[in-house]
């Protein structure tokens, strides 16, 4: 079947390519060229069937509109949950729990627990006076003052 196009002037090339297309003679390069030519907006209505064939109208996708408002609302909700969880973690007092594990066995007897707690405190307290004295002298502010005093003569 041969369809003859009746366009003239500037559309000769399009008509030629359309004829070749319907005759099944176009190369892939020519089809590409035809597709480009048909995508022009200033084409007469008579080219509409070819434009439809080449999917010009179909390829026009609707632009997605980005709506910020729903994201904002849900984002605020998430932020509120996070802040609430953080506050719970930081400001809530630690749950009261008194227990001890002795050789793998749990006890909740407060007297026993305190006895073991005091025993552990005794273990870390100073064994001799020398160490105790060294800690007494470990006043950082005094040390820093002494060190700074050493440099005070330089300013004169």
């Amino acid at each position: 079947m041969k369809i003859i196009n009746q366009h003239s002037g500037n559309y000769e090339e399009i008509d030629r390519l359309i004829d070749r297309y319907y005759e099944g003679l176009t190369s892939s390069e020519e089809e590409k060229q035809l597709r480009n030519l048909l995508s022009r907006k200033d084409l007469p209505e008579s080219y509409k069937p070819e434009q439809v064939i080449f999917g010009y109208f179909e390829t026009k996708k609707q632009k997605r509109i980005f709506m910020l408002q729903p994201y904002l609302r849900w984002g605020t909700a998430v932020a509120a949950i996070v802040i609430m969880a953080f506050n719970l973690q930081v400001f809530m007092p630690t749950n009261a729990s008194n227990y001890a594990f002795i050789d793998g066995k749990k006890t909740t007897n407060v007297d026993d627990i305190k006895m073991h707690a005091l025993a552990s405190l005794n273990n870390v307290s100073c064994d001799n006076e020398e160490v105790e004295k060294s800690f007494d002298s470990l006043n950082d502010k005094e040390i820093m003052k002494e060190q700074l005093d050493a440099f005070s003569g330089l300013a004169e």
Partner: protein
Amino acid sequence: MRSIKKYLVLMSVAIFGILQQLQAQSDLQISKAFDQYGERKGVVMVELTNEMLDGYDFSLFKSITIKDNPTASEFIRKCLAKDEIGAKKVKQVISNGIPTSTYLQLPHKGQLFRLILFSETFKPESKITLIYIESKNDSEDVLKLILKRK
């Protein structure tokens, strides 16, 4: 839109879960020592909250005493070395070239002062003691009181 809502709800639940996890584990490496060795044989682990202890007002007191366990000793020392990085003050007692006692004053947690005390003795038996304290009192004062107990 529905998938976004689902995603946001899931995310908030996940964040909440992570925060809870952080709270449970604490920010310190030594918490691993309590978790790992606390319930073993030859170990005494204590936890006291908001209790008066021989005149001390501790918001939280945790201690662990481990006997004859060089592996635990090495592990705790490694944990301490990491916690030392974030400490405000570090005090150590070194005996024969080995740090036998370590005292770490940590940054505040809210209004609470935090302290880590570690001691290792070899005579008459090998014994490690690790203590974690949270108190409203100045950690310097708490430390002085503890060290002068004997």
